[in-house]
C-alpha cells in the first residue's frame, strides 16, 4: 500500500459530493480520467480537470460516453488507476464497456450520479433507478460491485474503497451516487496520506514466459500485468482461456462465466459493507441506501415516536447484497421496509433473499425529489402493527 501524497488534500473542507468524489479518486491514486459532460455528474470531472495537472494525472474529455468508458480501460491496462463519471443516459452508453471490463477483468471505477430516468428523464433531479442497470445492464452473465454513498464525506471515503475493491477483485466498480448526494455540500475531512487505506494493483512477479493472463493461483482473481513490460499478453472480449486466447466452446465459457460470477458471489460476505442501528429489539427493519437512507432516518424517528420498534440497515455496498446478514435479520423481524427512489429494484432482490422468512415492503418513489418521511413512517407503523 502506497499513497501518493500529491493526491491527498489533507484537511477539513466544505465540499459537495461530486467534488468529494474527485478528491477520493485522487487520494486513491487515480491518475487517468475520461468523461463526457452530463448533469448532475459534471462537477466531478470539472474538478479533476483542474486538479490533475498539479499531480501528474491526465484527464481527457472524450467525444461521447462510449469513448470515455473504454479509454479508461485502455489506461488501466497501461497500469494507471482510472475512472469515468456519468449519469443515466451516459451510463446507458457505457454498458458496452462495463461488459468488456467484466469480461477482461479490468480494474476501473464507473461513477454514476443518478438522476431521474428513463431516457433523458430528469437531468437535474435525483433518482435511484439505475441500480439494476448497474448490476446487469450489459449483456451476458457477470457480477460487479456497487457502492452507494449517502454524504459528501462518504463520496470521498467510498471512492477510495471503490478503487480498492476494483483492484482486489479485478472488476469494474459502480459508484452509485445520486443528484442529492452529488450536489449536497457538507464538511469533508480528508486525513493525512498515511492514514488512508489504499490498495495497490497486484502485478504478477512471474517472469514473461511463465505468466498466463487468466491463470488463477490462489483464490479467484488472476494476477495482472500492464502493457510495455515485455509480457506480450493478449486481452479479448471474446470468451478466452487462461492464455487469454479466444476459446469458442462451451467448456471455456462454462469455466470463465463461473469464475467471473463466483469471484463476487462467493466473496459477497467479505465484500459486504453495511451500517446497522437499533436492531437489537427491532421488529421492523428499514433497509435503504444512498440519500434515501438519510430521509428514512426521519421516517424512523417519527415511527419510533409513535411506538414502533424499528431499526435501520443501510447498504453501503449494494451489490453484491449482504444476503447472509439480510436472512439473519429476516428471521427475527415482522418485516423489512425498503424505501428507494425507484419503483422496486433492490427491494425485489431483498424479497428474493428473504424468501418468505418475513415480509418485504417496498416504499417506492419515482424520483425527482426524495421521499416524504411521513410515507416511510406510515409503512413502518403498518408493518409493526
Amino acid at each position, binding site marked *: 500500500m502506497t499513497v501518493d501524497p500529491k493526491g491527498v488534500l489533507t484537511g477539513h473542507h466544505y465540499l459537495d459530493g461530486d467534488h468529494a468524489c474527485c478528491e477520493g479518486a485522487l487520494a486513491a491514486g487515480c491518475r487517468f480520467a475520461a468523461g463526457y459532460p452530463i448533469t448532475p455528474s459534471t462537477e466531478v470531472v470539472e474538478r479533476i480537470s483542474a486538479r490533475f495537472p498539479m499531480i501528474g494525472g491526465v484527464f481527457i474529455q472524450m*467525444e461521447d460516453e462510449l469513448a470515455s468508458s473504454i479509454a479508461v480501460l485502455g489506461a488501466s491496462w*497501461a497500469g494507471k488507476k482510472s475512472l469515468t463519471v456519468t449519469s443515466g443516459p451516459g451510463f446507458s452508453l457505457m454498458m458496452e464497456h462495463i461488459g468488456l471490463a467484466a469480461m477482461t477483468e479490468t480494474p476501473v471505477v464507473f461513477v454514476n450520479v443518478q438522476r431521474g430516468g428513463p431516457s433523458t428523464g430528469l437531468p437535474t433531479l435525483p433518482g435511484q433507478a439505475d441500480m439494476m442497470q448497474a448490476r446487469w445492464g450489459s449483456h451476458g452473465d457477470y457480477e460487479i460491485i456497487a457502492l452507494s454513498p449517502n454524504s459528501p464525506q462518504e463520496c470521498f471515503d467510498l471512492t477510495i474503497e471503490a478503487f480498492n475493491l476494483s483492484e482486489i477483485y479485478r472488476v469494474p466498480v459502480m459508484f452509485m451516487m445520486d443528484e442529492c448526494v452529488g450536489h449536497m455540500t457538507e464538511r469533508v475531512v480528508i486525513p493525512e496520506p498515511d492514514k488512508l487505506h489504499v490498495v495497490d494493483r497486484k502485478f504478477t512477479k512471474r517472469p514473461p514466459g511463465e505468466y498466463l493472463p487468466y491463470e488463477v493461483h490462489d483464490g479467484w482473481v488472476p494476477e495482472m500485468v500492464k502493457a510495455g513490460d515485455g509480457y506480450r*499478453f493478449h486481452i479479448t472480449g471474446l470468451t478466452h482461456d487462461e492464455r487469454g486466447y479466444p476459446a469458442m466452446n462451451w467448456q471455456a465459457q462454462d469455466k470463465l462465466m463461473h469464475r467471473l460470477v463466483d469471484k463476487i458471489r462467493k466473496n459477497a460476505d467479505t465484500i459486504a459493507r453495511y451500517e446497522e442501528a437499533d436492531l437489537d429489539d427491532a421488529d421492523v427493519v428499514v433497509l435503504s441506501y444512498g440519500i434515501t437512507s438519510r430521509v428514512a432516518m426521519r421516517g424512523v424517528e417519527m415511527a419510533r415516536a409513535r411506538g414502533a420498534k424499528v431499526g435501520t440497515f443501510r447498504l453501503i455496498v449494494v451489490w453484491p447484497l449482504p444476503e447472509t446478514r439480510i436472512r439473519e435479520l429476516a428471521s427475527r423481524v415482522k418485516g423489512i421496509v425498503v424505501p428507494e427512489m425507484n419503483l422496486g429494484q433492490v427491494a425485489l432482490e431483498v424479497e428474493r433473499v428473504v424468501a418468505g422468512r418475513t415480509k418485504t415492503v417496498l416504499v417506492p418513489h419515482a424520483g425527482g425529489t426524495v421521499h416524504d418521511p411521513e410515507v416511510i413512517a406510515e409503512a413502518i407503523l403498518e408493518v409493526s402493527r
Partner: protein
Amino acid sequence: MTTELEQHTPVNPVEPFLRMDRMPHIWCPGCGIGTTVNCFARALTSGGYDLDKVAIVSGIGCTGRVAGYLNLDSFHTTHGRAIPFATGLKLANPELKVVVYSGDGDLIAIGGNHLIHAARRNIDITVICINNMIYGMTGGQVGPATPNPAITSTAPYGAFEQPFNLPFLADSCGAVYVARWTSYHVRQITRAMREAMDKRGFSFLEIVAPCPTLYQRRNRLGDGLDAMKYYKERSIRKDGANTRDVDIGYQGDIIVGKFIDRERPTFLQAMNQRFTEKLGSSYTPYPTGYDD
C-alpha cells in the same frame, strides 16, 4: 528416423512476430489481411522498434482479429472502439507505440466518431485501416466504403449510398500522415507502416484489400489473384495528391501514395504547452513519449 529436411526446418522470418500457437488463422484464401500482417511484421523487423513497447489494438471484424495473432501486447476490444481504447492506453503510458489495426466497417462506420476526434486531437497513435469495402465477418453486408453499385448481402440490388473517401476524411480531421496502398503493394505498405509509426501524431494508413469470399464472389470479380491484377492495373501513384480527389469508384482507378505528411503538436505536447503557459513552474510536464 529424422530426415535432414526436418532437422533444418526453415523458420519464416515473420514467425517471431506472430503467435504461432494460434495458427492457422481464420482468414479466407485470397484475403488481403494476412498479406498486410506480413508487411506489418516486416515493418517491425526493419524499423528497429522495442517490441516490448509496441501495443496493438483492434476492434471487431475480420481485421479485428489481427491483434490476436501478433506477438505483442495486444488488445481485442469492442466494435468500433479500438481508437478510444488506444487513446487511454497511449495517454496513460506515452512510452508505448500504439497501433490500431482494424477494418473499414469497424473504424469508419461504428467507430467513425472516434476516428475523427482522435485525428482532430492528434492523439499519437497509428491507425491501419484495412478497407475491404464490406463487412466480412458477418457475411458481406454493405459498408461505409462500399463503392456503387457493388452487390452486397444487404444491398442485393447494388449499393447506392455515397461511400467515404477515407484519406480525405482523415486529412480533413487533422491527421498528420495519410497514405493509401493496396495489398498488392507489399513493399510500399511496409515502408508506409514504418513511416506512420515513426510519425509523431495521428497517422492513418488505408490499405485496400480484397474479400474474395464475399465481395469478389458476389460481384463476379474472380478470386484473390484477380483482385491483385486489378490493383496492379488500376493503381495510380500520386504522392501528395489532394485527398479530395482520391475517391475509389467501383472497379475504377485507385489513387495510391503518401498524401499527407505534416507537423502538428500531439495531444500531450499541446497539453503540456498550454498548462506550462498557464501554470508555469507549478506544472510538471507530462511525458509525451519523446525526449525533446
